[in-house]
Structures are given as structure tokens and as C-alpha cells.
């Protein structure tokens, strides 16, 4: 009778206080930017880390992506944060995947690779894109630093049950249309705050056919619709992904675990507070034109005109966005030139993303004047891509092939846009200054970003790859 979210939630209730529950947290991921103050808070209060074995630490946000990073990190503050993470992990007995570790990468990518994220668990990280991990049928959510400290100390958090939304996607995706296009169109439909207060479960045949990589891309961006939680019920695709990973249930426990996971999916008569249906069979590749992820349009479209918007607040927001983006209403999206291309981030830097981008880059050249970066999401993704020869494809086409990290997704490391530069990016946020002060971001899928790289403008990948 319940939603999958409610079933997992109920299993994790330690105790209640009014309308709040103390929710047990099975696992926590920590990175260098949002954890130092949490560890410091514990130290000041003289509190130990309750379950060090349930925590995994990794530096990802401000690590350089150039080969010399093991020897030197020029930025003093970045270095200090990475060193603080090392010290804190060591002091607490928490496992750290350091920058020289072949498994290092973006926190939301390495967790699944380790088999750390399993159906039915609760997992948190001081990072809003933790919802990514809900793709395994888990309650996964981003928290602030005070909450990180709370989980370190008590392995639990006071929470209110969110409302339940189901987004059902049907129809086969057309060639070169990806899960990124699906989620961009969902966000455009419900708006940047349409999911506030909700957990969103993605369902429907289109989602069932997606790989774990694609499902993670979908759940990654639920926060861009305001929802802290995105989730997808586990199935054979999930089990096949997990089997044999370091922290997946070992052979003697595997059967019991799978039997348990099969009880998780939402019941047919589960009650939803809101339902959204999307027919994806005619969906086109999507691109954003503005400074909110909700500003997504099919690539065949044109920059919208604020004057046509009735709501004064929205009109004003659109005007401001166009001014920042340096765009004029009516301009065709495919007439917008780009300076940089970024293929990376926890949204789209898994192996499947790199394969899709490489298929477009293959035998083509990055357009003159364009700088294009490929930043694999983790050391394991990088290794696999190299085994498949994808690095050669990118390098031959004139892309740069970097070491794993968040990189130009948020410009905390040296990879950033200069003021006025325009970037085709596979990341998740096109906020003002996100990729560097004054930088302009257009969000899109990996094949679309590769098409932008080889044409020097936003392009319909279906025409480029023809």
C-alpha cells in the first residue's frame, strides 16, 4: 500500500518526536568542501564519530585535473581543505580515497562503483546532488554541514516525511536522445521549485529500459526541480550492476539481499500526492538558454521573449537571465556560438556518457577557437575508457583528457570559465557564475556537447552525426 520511499523510510525510524522521525542513516559520503566544519564541531564538543566504518571520504571538488596534481596543488586554500579531509579521516578512522588512489573521483560516482549504495538504504552527503544515488532504490539526500556533523555523531537525522511525487515516463527515446534530455524536459515542465518538499520517484517503461548510468543522470538532477530525493525502484538492471562490487552483499548473503530488495518497489495502490506523466517518444535533445535549469528547450527552438511572459516576476527573471547570458530573444539556439565545452560532472561523466560523446567526436575535430575538456567522473571510468580507446578518440579530435574531479562543473579548481565565455556543458547547473565568474553555461547531454565542440556552436547532434 505504500510508496517505495515510505517503505524504506519506515524501516529506518529509530524514534519519533511530534511529526519528526529520527531516521537511521546507513551510510555517509564526505568530501573536502562541506565537511571540515563538521569535524571541527565534533572536536570542539569532544564527540567521537559514531560509526567510522559507515563513512567514505574523497576529495573531488577542488582537486586539479592535471597530471601533476599528486606532486603539487598550487592553490593554498584547496590544498588546506584536502589536507584537512586527510587529517579528519585519519583521526576518525574513516576510509579515505585520496587523490592518488586509482578509484578517486566525484563522490556520487565512486559510491556506486564501490557497491556502497544498495537498494533500501539511507545515504547522505553534504552535497545537494546526493539524490543521484536514489537510482538504486535508496533514500539518498543532500544535507548541510551541521547535518553532516549530526550524522557523524549520531548516525541519524531528524527528518520530516516528504510528499510523494511520481513522474512516469513512457515511449522509446529516439536515437541520440538521452536521459539528460528527459530530466531537462521534466524540470522545464515542473519548474525549479516544482519538486520542493517532495521525493520524486521516476517510473515508466522508459526509465525501466535505462541503464544504471542513465538512471543516475535522472536522479542527479531532481534537486534542480527542488526535490531533495529522486528514486527509481531496483530491478534486474540494478542487481546486475551491483553484483560483485566490493561492498555488494557477498555470495552467502546475496540471495537474501535480493529477496529483500524485491519487496521494495511501490505498491500498485500506493498513494501519490502528485503525478506527472511524460511521453518521451517524440522528445528532442534539450538545451538551456538561461540561468536556471528550468530554462530548457528543444534544440530546434529559439531564445524566448520575456515580453511574451504575462507574470511580471517571471518576465523580470527572464530579462535578467538573457542579459547575463548575452542573448537576444528570437535567436535560434543553433546559432549560439560556444567558446568552451565541458564533458564531465556527476550528471554525465560515467562510461556510457563518455562513449556517447566519443561516438560523435570520432573522426571529427574540435572547431577552431574552441577549448574542449573531457573529465572522467572517476579513476575507474577513466581506466575503462582508456581500455576502450575513448581517450584516443577524444585526443585525436582535439579534446583534452583530464584526471577525475568536479572540475569545471563548479570552477573551484583551476578549470573555470572567464567572464563572458560561453560553455556547452554536461553538468547540472547553469546558475550565474557557476562555472566561473561571468561565465555562461548551456546545459545539454554528452553527445550534444560533443556536437557543440566540433561545430563551435550549439548544434543538433542528430544533424552533426548524420
Amino acid at each position, binding site marked *: 500500500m505504500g510508496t517505495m520511499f515510505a517503505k524504506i523510510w519506515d524501516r529506518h525510524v529509530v524514534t519519533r518526536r511530534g511529526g519528526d522521525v529520527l531516521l537511521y542513516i*546507513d551510510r555517509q559520503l564526505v568530501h573536502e568542501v562541506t565537511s571540515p566544519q563538521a569535524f571541527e564541531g565534533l572536536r570542539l564538543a569532544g*564527540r567521537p564519530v559514531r560509526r567510522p566504518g559507515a563513512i567514505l571520504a574523497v576529495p573531488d571538488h577542488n582537486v586539479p585535473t592535471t597530471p601533476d596534481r599528486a606532486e603539487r596543488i598550487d592553490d593554498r586554500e584547496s590544498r588546506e581543505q584536502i589536507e584537512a579531509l586527510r587529517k579528519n579521516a585519519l583521526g576518525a578512522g574513516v*576510509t579515505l580515497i585520496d587523490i592518488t588512489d586509482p578509484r578517486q573521483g566525484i563522490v556520487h560516482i565512486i559510491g556506486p562503483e564501490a557497491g556502497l549504495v544498495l537498494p533500501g538504504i539511507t545515504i547522505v552527503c553534504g552535497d545537494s546532488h546526493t539524490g543521484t544515488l536514489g537510482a538504486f532504490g535508496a533514500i539518498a539526500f543532500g544535507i548541510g554541514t551541521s547535518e553532516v*556533523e*549530526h550524522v557523524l555523531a549520531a548516525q541519524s537525522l531528524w527528518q520530516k516525511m516528504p510528499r510523494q511525487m511520481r513522474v512516469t515516463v513512457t515511449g522509446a527515446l529516439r536515437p541520440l536522445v538521452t536521459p539528460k534530455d528527459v530530466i531537462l524536459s521534466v524540470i522545464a515542465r515542473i519548474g525549479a*521549485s516544482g519538486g520542493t518538499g517532495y521525493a520524486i520517484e521516476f517510473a515508466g517503461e522508459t526509465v525501466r529500459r535505462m541503464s544504471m548510468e542513465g538512471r543516475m543522470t535522472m536522479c542527479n538532477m531532481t534537486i534542480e526541480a527542488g526535490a531533495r530525493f529522486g528514486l527509481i525502484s531496483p530491478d534486474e538492471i540494478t542487481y546486475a550492476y551491483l553484483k560483485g562490487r566490493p561492498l555488494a552483499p557477498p555470495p552467502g548473503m546475496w540471495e537474501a539481499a535480493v529477496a529483500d530488495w524485491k519487496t521494495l518497489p511501490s505498491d500498485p495502490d500506493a498513494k501519490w500526492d502528485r503525478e506527472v506523466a511524460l511521453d518521451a517518444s517524440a522528445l528532442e535533445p534539450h538545451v538551456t538558454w538561461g540561468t536556471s535549469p528550468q530554462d530548457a528547450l528543444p534544440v530546434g527552438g529559439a531564445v524566448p521573449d520575456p515580453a511574451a511572459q504575462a507574470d511580471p516576476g517571471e518576465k523580470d527573471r527572464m530579462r535578467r537571465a538573457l542579459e547575463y547570458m548575452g542573448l537576444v530573444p528570437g535567436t535560434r539556439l543553433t546559432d549560439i556560438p560556444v567558446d568552451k565545452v565541458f564533458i564531465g560532472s556527476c550528471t554525465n561523466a560515467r562510461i556510457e556518457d563518455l562513449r556517447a560523446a566519443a561516438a560523435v567526436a570520432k573522426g571529427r575535430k574540435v572547431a577552431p577557437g574552441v577549448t574542449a575538456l573531457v573529465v572522467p567522473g572517476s579513476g575507474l571510468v577513466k581506466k575503462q575508457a582508456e581500455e576502450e580507446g575513448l581517450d584516443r578518440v577524444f585526443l585525436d579530435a582535439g579534446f583534452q583528457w583530464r584526471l577525475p574531479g568536479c572540475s569545471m562543473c*563548479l570552477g573551484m579548481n583551476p578549470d573555470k570559465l572567464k567572464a563572458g565565455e560561453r560553455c556547452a556543458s554536461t553538468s547540472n547547473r547553469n546558475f550565474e557564475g557557476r562555472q566561473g*565568474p561571468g561565465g555562461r553555461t548551456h546545459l545539454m547531454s554528452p553527445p550534444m556537447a560533443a556536437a557543440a565542440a566540433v561545430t563551435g556552436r550549439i548544434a543538433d547532434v542528430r544533424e552533426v552525426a548524420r
Partner: protein
Amino acid sequence: MREKFTFLDTAGVPLDRRNVDTDAIIPARYLKTIKRTGLEEGLFFAWRYDADGRERPDFPLNRPSYRGGRVLVAGENFGCGSSREHAVWALMDFGFRAVIAPSFSDIFHNNCLKNGMLPVTLPAADVQSLIDALLAAPGCRVEVDLPGQTVKGPKGDVHRFSIDPFAKTCLLEGLDEIALTMKSAPEIDRYERERKAATPWLFRDIPG
């Protein structure tokens, strides 16, 4: 641990924008700190300063009549985007103790409460009327009364707001939430034992 929150009677600072994201509140380059303080410099950096580092005179935080204001009044979906608690720390470093908006992102809202900052949700029309009044008469005052759960605008208009009773108590008394939770340690111990028995595969330590 935290500062207590009871009343505010202060200049209101209008920020007539919706979807103000945490990258705008504090850009990523200011997050490279291991402290909770010293973040006021980065607050709304790209909106406060131009490319040459000069203050933009028309941005509300730079206008003399709004200086010292401790209540920010903004558009819907305030604090969307990243989970960075630095956004709250920066607002507090600058002097803000409350934000009034038609809606907040879930994580930002939580982060406020953990730090003794009051997020007040009011209907969009009420917020717009407050913003309009503050823009029309810069420097005029807004009163926030947490015990009574009201906001009083510059024209004497009174707006009631709701707040979770536990969050209210924590704000009024400046409580340390972790210390409170620690009282539930026996329940956590018991839960953990049961969970370990039911799903032993979740209790294998993460390999180094």
C-alpha cells in the same frame, strides 16, 4: 551553542528576485575555507561588485539606507541549488538573522534553522507588498516576532507565519540539536543491533 532568536526590529533589505541560488549567495571560490566565519566578503559577490571590484551602487546591500538591515526580503525559491551551509554563514556574517520569502529550498531552510537564522515563509502577495514598501521607502523597518509568529511591515501591516514547534523552541532557546539527539543514544543502539541482524551486508566496513 547558537545565538537565540526572539525579536528583530530592523531595516528590511529588499531583494526583488526569484530563484536566488546559493552560488549567487556565495560563489564557490569562497567555500575553500575550513571555518564557519569570515564569509561576509563573498556574500552576493557578483551582484555587489562589478568586474573591477567596485561596489555596484544600486544593489540593495550597497545602498546606505539599507545598511545594517538584518532582515532580507526576497522572491520565491530562495536558496535553491547547492547544499552549502556557507550561504547561511555568509548571510549571518553580514548581519542577517532572518529571510522572508514566499518559498525556500528544503536544504537552505534546514541549514537556516541549524544556525539560529529564521526563514519566514509568507504568501507571495504579502512578500511582494513588503518588497514594494521597502523599495519605496528605503530604510523603513520590519519587525519579526518569533514568539508571536508575526512580521510587521513598514505600514503597520501584520503578517502571521507558521513554524514547526520544535524548530521554534530550538531558535528561541538556542539549543544544540546534537546534544538533544544524544539523549536517544539507547534507541539508536537498539536500532543498530536489529538492523545488523536483519541486513548484515550493510555492516561490512568500507575497505581502504
